[in-house]
């Protein structure tokens, strides 16, 4: 735990987290030629961003300037451009990839290149049908929920350790881990709820996972209420709270893993399907590797942030106890 406190490590964490937040939000979400057609036909959007690779430079035939470009699934298409300078001014050279809005004109069966948004992007996320830009929430909401579960697990382990070894430090760590877990649960609830407003239409609709996370919040709020209502010595308080923490943790796996998989749910993996939230197999929804890798980076960073938070909370609690004595 010493390394978590050292300033070089903390600045590394800050830098890594800033970069991760930047890439989570600024990485373009791109579709392919098929998505352009689908969106046009459904009337959802006139043009969407597509990651293109320029095959050859612009050429003037067939009544107007064109380029030949390949999308990320290797589909080659002729794309109409306004003029040769549109490509050249953006700095796109033959063989380089770029992100641009692409429109499909059904009557002429042609693709038209819109504004170029990015040349040689570091990373792109796959367009998820029905989610689009909203799919980014997977980089915040899911890692936060995972960290929350880890926090409660660690809190319970500290409670068990306290009951075995009776060292007050373990009790403070258990309290600190549960408090940080509560914070992460709250953040996961807020991000999920805002996301649900734009994806499902309402902030809250009692989906099984929403029930679970609500009950999870209640459990750990009850844990802190219980602690404040005990009128005993510090040692007995710690013992009784540790027992409640362990008893309560029995229901956490049921809430987080069992019930959301059995009940019909709007979340992925509900209704008896075997698919979990993150799915690397091809059916039914394949998670984009770039998004998935970014997701695990975010998990790692949130867990490091949690460890620091837990450490910090525990030390503040220790200082409080020293001043009280």
């Amino acid at each position, binding site marked *: 735990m010493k390394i978590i406190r050292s300033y070089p490590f903390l600045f590394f964490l800050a830098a890594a987290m800033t970069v991760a937040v930047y890439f989570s939000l600024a990485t373009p979400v791109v579709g392919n030629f098929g998505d352009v057609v689908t969106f046009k036909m459904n009337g959802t959007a006139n043009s969407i961003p597509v990651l293109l690779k320029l095959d050859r430079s612009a050429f003037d035939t067939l009544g107007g300037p064109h380029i030949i470009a390949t999308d990320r699934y290797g589909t080659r298409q002729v794309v109409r451009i306004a003029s040769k300078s549109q490509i050249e001014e953006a700095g796109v050279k033959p063989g380089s990839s770029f992100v641009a809005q692409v429109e499909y004109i059904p009557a002429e069966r042609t693709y038209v290149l819109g504004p170029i948004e990015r040349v040689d992007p570091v990373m792109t996320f796959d367009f998820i049908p029905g989610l689009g830009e909203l799919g980014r929430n997977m980089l915040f909401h899911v890692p936060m929920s995972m960290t929350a579960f880890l926090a409660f697990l660690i809190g319970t382990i500290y409670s068990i350790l306290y*009951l075995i070894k009776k060292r007050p430090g373990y009790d403070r760590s258990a309290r600190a881990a549960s408090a940080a877990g509560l914070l992460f649960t709250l953040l996961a609830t807020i991000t999920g709820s805002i996301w649900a407003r734009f994806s499902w239409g309402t902030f809250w609709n009692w989906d099984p996972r929403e*029930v679970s996370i609500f*009950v*999870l919040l*209640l*459990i750990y709020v*009850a844990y802190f*209420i*219980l602690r404040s*209502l*005990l*009128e*005993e010595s510090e040692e*007995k308080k710690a*013992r*009784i709270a*540790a*027992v*409640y923490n*362990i*008893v*309560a943790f*029995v*229901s956490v796996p*049921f*809430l987080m893993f*069992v*019930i959301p998989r*059995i*009940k019909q749910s709007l979340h992925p993996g509900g209704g*008896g399907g075997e698919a979990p939230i993150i799915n690397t197999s091809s059916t039914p929804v394949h998670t984009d590797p770039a998004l998935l890798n970014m997701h695990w980076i975010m998990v790692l960073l949130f867990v490091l942030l949690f460890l620091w938070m837990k450490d910090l909370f525990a030390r503040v609690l220790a200082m409080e106890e020293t001043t009280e004595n």
Partner: protein
Amino acid sequence: MPSTATALLRKDFTIEFRTRFGVSAVVMFLLVTVAVIAFSTPGEQLSSSILSAFFWIALFFGGMTGLARSFIAEEERGTAFLLRVYAPSDSIFIGKFLFNLAMMLSLALVSVLAFLFFFRDFAVKDWPMFLLQLVLGATGIASVSTILSAIIGRAVQKGALLPVLALPVLMPLVIATTDATRITLEVANSWDGIRENILILLSFDVAITLVSYVLFDVIWKD
């Protein structure tokens, strides 16, 4: 079963038969709940999901009123100290748990009878499965409230605290058992529909009873 557990069980039953405090309070609570539901939905066709929710709300809060007393009464009468001296903690847990289980099962029986009598729509289609999930649900509530009432024996604001502590912990059980009750009210051959719920109930009951049994000693001794 240790003889001290049997003795404790007999003692609790004797007190209960003499005063009838727990039973009468719980039955009153149950009847008031049923009356309020019946009064607010006159002549309406109640769906099985609403009925199963009402049923478990009545059972859960009825149980909380009755079972909260198991250790608080000992603390209030000052007999908790004597119990600590005379009996090993595991037999106290077994005795109290069995007493709570008996209370919970009789409460379940009374509420089934009350619901059958007062609500025309409460027509159970699959009795064996209904009784199975009822017993499993009652066991879970009895086991959680045994350990938690031992915990709140030590806290201020004793009366209100048990539902606050117990409801979130029991939520997986309540979700599973409400769903199971709904299905047994709807389908005659319900095993396929409630299999997963029964598995949740069973594993939850076993896990929570074992954890409570192991941890009771920590709460009980000074």
